[in-house]
């Protein structure tokens, strides 16, 4: 896999290291009040000192992210299939999905906490599921419907059933759309899960570490939790990329090279 080979890693790594170095250097030279923006080295030290707390919180928040992501992705994909397959479902479900998407869902987190219990993971999961659902639904539905008429007519000329056309033409056609959405929502889920934690609930979460430490001006520790969240986000992004490559296989490379 190309993106796992050394060459592709080099430019972003050099750029990232350069940016961190510059950040460190500028703060070291100007030496502002330390609590405004900690240096990367200070964040690294804070991460080291609080590693077990951040690790435990990453597991709690990570569970919310993964379960919410899985739920939203499955619901979004299934809804797209249903909507494309059944016309009446399209006429009722699509406006409903659009309406749900128009709601500022993260802003509803306190209400979800009331409905589902503030310490229960259910309210956090519900917010992540709702946020993840829409991009997956819209993208997948588009991939399922954007098929050449002639390909459908061809399948009909072979007397293929609607489900067969779905399996053989529509679903493979929708895969790239689906995976684009998956990469998008991978990071969206991280943001959603952490922001929901700002509104209270369990103490041992990344969101809580950030709010608590920011309140007491321990910015380096807050940043350490942000770094943990970023790592989860990046890991999920690459996981999505790997699944995509496995699913589309040599075809993706053939089209990329052609």
């Amino acid at each position, binding site marked *: 896999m190309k993106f796992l080979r050394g060459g592709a890693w080099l430019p972003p790594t050099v750029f990232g290291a350069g940016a961190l170095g510059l950040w460190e250097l500028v703060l070291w030279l100007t030496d502002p009040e330390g609590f405004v923006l900690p240096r990367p080295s200070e964040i690294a030290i804070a991460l080291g000192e609080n590693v077990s707390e951040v690790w435990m919180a990453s597991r709690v928040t990570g569970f919310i992210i993964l379960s919410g992501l899985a739920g939203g992705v499955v619901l979004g994909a299934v809804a797209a299939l249903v909507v494309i397959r059944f016309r009446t479902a399209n006429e009722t479900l699509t406006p409903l999905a659009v309406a749900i998407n128009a709601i500022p869902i993260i802003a509803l987190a306190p209400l979800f906490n009331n409905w589902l219990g503030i310490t229960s993971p259910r309210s956090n999961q519900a917010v992540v599921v709702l946020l993840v659902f829409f991009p997956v639904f819209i993208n997948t539905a588009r991939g399922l419907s954007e098929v*050449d008429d*002639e*390909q459908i*007519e*061809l*399948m*009909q*000329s*072979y*007397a*293929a059933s609607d489900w*067969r056309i779905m399996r*053989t*033409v529509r679903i*493979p056609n929708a*895969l790239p759309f689906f995976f684009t959405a998956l990469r998008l929502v991978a990071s969206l889920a991280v943001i959603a899960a952490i922001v929901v934690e700002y509104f209270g609930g369990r103490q041992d979460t990344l969101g809580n570490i950030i709010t608590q430490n920011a309140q007491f001006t321990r910015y380096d520790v807050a940043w350490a939790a942000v770094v943990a969240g970023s790592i989860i986000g990046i890991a999920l992004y690459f996981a999505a990329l790997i699944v995509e490559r496995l699913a*589309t296989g*040599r*075809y993706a490379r*053939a*089209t990329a090279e*052609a």
Partner: protein
Amino acid sequence: MAQDLVLEIAGLEKTFNPGRSNAVTAISDLYLAVRPREFVSIIGPSGCGKSTLLRLVGGLIEPTAGELSVNGRSAQEARLGRDYGMVFQAAGLLDWRTAIRNVELPLELMGWSKLRRRKRAKEMLELVDLGGFASHYPAELSGGMQQRVSIARALSFEPSLLLMDEPFGALDEMTREYMQTELLKIWRETATTVIFITHSIPEAVFLSTRVAVMSPRPARIAAELPIDLPERTPQTRDTEEFFRDVSLVRRTLRSVEGQ
């Protein structure tokens, strides 16, 4: 209806949006009969309903009125009985399938075993001179090659009727003439009956045993011209007989359009 006809059409009519203000009669009072092993080209002014006719024959849309029978059955029955191989202007290959797996597609739908369909698909790719490209993806093939895969796919299950809708319309002139020669070779080898939609007069003359000229909308078959060329090779295009038939079709087309 006579059993020895592959296709028999009588008094066919197709009106889109019937009974509404935007109703359009695309085809009206159309008659056509095609015998086995014929190669019939249908030519006419653009937008005259050629593609509509092909879709009616293929059972993809329903006629408003008239009779249409394929091997003595209705178009729907024939479609469900897989009597048709269809080739469109766009090759319509599935991008994520290799050439050979595209050819296998109809065989897969017909429940052929993997071994059997692989063997047949290989033969078909060799028939269209693409034996060496079995594991290439459509994106790795030229337009002409893609269209050959599409033809191989259409012929793979030996349909009794090959329906072609301007299959070479998107190809450049050189590729087009090459494909025409290839198609004739395949037609002779497979003993298929072909209905070929085109708006190119030389193409219709070069390929066909008979050219059916369509009138402007609402379309009917205004004239049928048998084409009797002594041989059909690339050199045929420079012969007097060829020019004579081309100009005959052209004059017919012109008089039909003028009506």
